[in-house]
């Protein structure tokens, strides 16, 4: 059809710039096709292929980093995708997260006796969606990425035949589908107000057609709907209600994936929509972000503190972390120089590694307790598995924001960005809510270190690749926590967007 259209000229395709996406899709297709046509592979091989795929995509992204230093950011594929440091940084983050989650999944599936390529393929498909979201320069492309990610996540959440997993999948699907619809309607309204779905053109339209004081009711209504959709995806209060149930019900490795890749991609989309497409509306969206941030921080940490299940605790804590990241987004929404965007992406990278490590430890504990992830299952863990408990402690202290961990550097970054633009109130609220959240992390630590189980509990199995994932995450958390400069340097340039 298109070929017959004389007005259609095929755009130049920058294949090299698309290589991370192509690698991820290629890996997914390879797993599905070859995996389906060949007899069962040796244990772990599906996972290793996934890791190799993610590493390849990550390396492609790394190789292109200096390209932007030399030539500056650009839009590619006829303006559909943005090729800038934000894209590459989040691509690398997502690839790191996929590799770590795949390590964890090898053991999870082996123990469950379900070693098969499907889950890995879904991870790669979801990661592709995430990369597309973070590089989208068109609202429709953004939506395509969002749906690719979300549909994969719905399937992943429901991938075990347990009632909890099925329930998590259906809840996530119904609510997520609703949020996607709201988001799509938002795109439509913004299109109505700006006559374009292209992010560059939307941003440009404010200097030409739409009056600068942002009075276009269509754009404002569209912005409101977009914010609802995005807030749902990042699980910001009051759009967070799905997350504890879904996090708790989904298989551990899927929860780790949602909390890392899902969150990173959703925030990437938020940055694209708010900072690249609608920067001229910043006075309209910034107060909304402020309120979302404060609600997420306070309610997330308060509700986390009263949970009795560790997965639910971590779910609410991820809500509170979303609040922290929103503080960075809010700071980035002020006019003038600031490093809000850099602090947001650094936070996403650090938090992704942290949260995968935390859920990996939860997975270790859950195996030997018949899937029990309640706080009491952690009692006396330090006596049985001191090294793993130490790693858990590192993750929890990092999430609480204790120095010499990446968690502290991440929190310091966003608060610094907020203070730089004189948002003192939100900085103080964020730090105080970190104290409330710290209470919850302390509860887990008390249970693991200080509570002694009366009856003899069997020592948890610690399968090798899970331990490897935990070890890598813990070492990253401490080493980068002590010497964060290279990550911060790298993140510094992400605020130069392709338009």
């Amino acid at each position, binding site marked *: 059809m298109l070929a017959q259209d004389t007005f259609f000229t095929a755009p130049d395709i920058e294949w090299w710039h698309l290589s991370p996406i192509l690698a991820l899709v290629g890996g997914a297709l390879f797993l599905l096709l070859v995996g389906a046509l060949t007899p069962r592979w040796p244990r772990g091989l599906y996972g290793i292929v996934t890791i190799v795929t993610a590493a390849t995509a990550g390396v492609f992204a790394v190789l292109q980093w200096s390209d932007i230093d030399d030539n500056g950011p650009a839009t590619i594929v006829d303006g559909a995708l943005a090729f800038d440091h934000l894209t590459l940084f989040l691509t690398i983050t997502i690839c790191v997260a996929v590799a770590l989650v795949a390590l964890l999944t090898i053991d999870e599936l082996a123990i469950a006796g379900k070693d098969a390529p499907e889950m890995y393929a879904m991870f790669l498909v979801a990661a592709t969606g995430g990369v597309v979201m973070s590089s989208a320069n068109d609202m429709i492309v953004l939506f395509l990425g969002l749906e690719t990610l979300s549909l994969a996540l719905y399937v992943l959440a429901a991938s075990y035949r347990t009632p909890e997993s099925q329930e998590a999948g259906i809840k996530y699907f119904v609510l997520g589908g609703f949020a996607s619809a709201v988001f799509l309607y938002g795109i439509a309204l913004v299109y109505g107000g700006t006559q374009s779905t292209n992010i560059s053109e939307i941003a440009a339209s404010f200097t030409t057609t739409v009056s600068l004081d942002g009075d276009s009711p269509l754009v404002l209504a569209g912005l409101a709907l977009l914010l609802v959709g995005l807030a749902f995806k990042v699980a910001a209060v009051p759009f967070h209600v799905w997350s504890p149930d879904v996090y708790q019900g989904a298989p551990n490795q899927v929860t780790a994936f949602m909390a890392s890749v899902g969150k990173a991609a959703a925030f990437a989309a938020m940055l694209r929509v708010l900072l690249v497409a609608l920067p001229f509306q910043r006075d309209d969206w910034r107060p909304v972000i402020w309120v979302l941030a404060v609600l997420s921080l306070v309610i997330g940490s308060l509700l986390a503190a009263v949970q009795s299940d560790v997965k639910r605790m971590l779910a609410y804590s991820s809500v509170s972390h979303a609040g922290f990241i929103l503080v960075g987004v809010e700071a980035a929404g002020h006019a003038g120089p600031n490093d809000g965007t850099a602090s947001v992406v650094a936070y996403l990278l650090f938090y992704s590694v942290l949260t995968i490590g935390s859920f990996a430890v939860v997975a270790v504990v859950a195996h030997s307790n018949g899937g029990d992830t309640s706080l009491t299952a952690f009692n006396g863990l330090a006596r049985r598995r001191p090294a793993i408990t130490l790693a858990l402690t590192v993750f929890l202290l990092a999430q609480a924001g204790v*120095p010499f961990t990446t968690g502290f550097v991440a929190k*310091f970054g966003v608060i610094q960005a907020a203070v730089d633009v004189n948002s003192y109130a939100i900085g103080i609220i964020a730090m105080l809510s970190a104290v409330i959240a710290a209470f919850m992390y302390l509860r887990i630590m008390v249970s693991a270190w200080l509570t002694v189980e009366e009856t003899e509990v069997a020592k948890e199995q610690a399968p090798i690749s899970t331990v490897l994932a935990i070890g890598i995450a813990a070492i990253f958390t401490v080493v980068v926590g002590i010497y964060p400069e290279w990550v911060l340097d790298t993140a510094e340039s992400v605020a130069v967007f392709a338009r």
Partner: protein
Amino acid sequence: MHDELSFPILTALVLTPAIGAVLIALISSRQAQYAKLVAAITSVTTGAMAIWLTAEFHQSDDGFQFVTKQPWIEEWGISWHLGVDGISLFLVLLTGVLFPLAILGIDPHNDEPGRDKPYLAWLLLLEAGVMGSFLSLDLFLFFVFFEIVLVPMYFLIGGWGYEGRVYAATKFFLYTMTGSAFMLVSIMATAYIASRNGVSGVTFDLVEIAENAEFAASTGRWLFFGFAIAFAVKVPVFPLHTWLPDAHTQAPTAGSVVLAGVMLKLGTYGLLRFGLYLFPEAAYWSRYLWLGLAVVGILYGAIAATMQTDLKRLVAYSSVAHLGFIVLGTFAFTSQAITGSVMQMVNHGVSTGALFLMVGWIYERRHTRQIAELSGLQKVAPIFAAGFMVVMLSSIGVPGLNGFVGEYLILIGTFLAEPWYAAIAATGVILAALYLLWAYQRVFHGEPGEANEGFAELKLKEAATLLPFIGIIVFTGVYPKPMLDRIEPAVDRLIGHVESVADFEAPSPDEPVIVEHDDADETEEGDH
């Protein structure tokens, strides 16, 4: 500038215990006996370096010495900037001396020998954190160390404490972290606002900001209070003190010694270094608030201590009172009072540290801390009683012992500036005599009774641990000059800095002020 040591001694002071902690963590549980050896070597080395530092310290130099400055996170203007002056010197020395004593002299009370390993690792990590806090000249670096000490202390209290330890440890952690939350925001705001008012570029360098930044009065006050809340919790200043009796009482003996000895000083030291030095105007402006709270703290701590039935809690409340004196001296803004405060920080660390040590030994022998269940210990353990007596008298502030010098300087210095506050605070000295002597009478005098018959005499190891404490107590009490000579220049410089920035002039020295401590001022000191 004079010759500096080529050896980066301050960095070594921070890193040696940290390396020790890592080494201990790496030792396998089957060879746990080496853990103690590593802990002993690293803590004694650190102590020796602290003594060496004191010996090499240039007495007449009022600025920072042995300064090390290496960029750490250049992106954010953060550097590894360490330095020591007369105000921090003796706190570093105290830290260096107290930790080996706590590590070698006190056994953790637990039933499983395998658990000594983490205990020692946490203690060494704590030492590194405390050292770092006292030596940092970078706001970020200071915050990092100030915050990191919470973690080892949390685990020490929670893991090796007494019956209510989990509650006490959690309360301690959350209280202090709440204070730090305000300080962190304040630190960042200070750096950014300073970068727009006199300092070139965003930097967290303390000296750079303190010397060059010009804060508007109201801005400075907000920033000051952000810092001050964190320090007020740490000190603790009444009414933020409620974590302290729990934490002190539930902590293991070594934890209490370190907590009282050096950790509370992070608060009072912080007020001097990051309150008065960074925000002279705001500190001076708010002085009546602090003086008032200090006086209330002195009286409240003393009265609460009198009412305690638990010996360890009594000592804990006496800390509230003693730290009230230190805060009083800090905000009197006279050279004598601040010198006295700095001195009293060290004195309180020594005497209260020793008190907690001995109360710990009493608990080990009798498995109770209740004053009512103890009596007549002097009859069965006279040397123990004598040791306790010396330490207690030092805590009361009897002339000839160290506590007197500090308290006297604080009171005389405060009297120069604010006579009424000094007069009320002086009654705290009398109350201290009351509650401590009364406790001594109940515990050590009278008949031992059946339960206390078997109370063992001071053991050789215990005597060896106690002796350094008593040595410092007596030496400083009789000959405080070497200490004062090193503290005073730095304090005078600080006062000069406050005078140059705030609308303030230190009280004129024309008034007849007797600085020699052997001329006791009758009206001030009372008779005890």
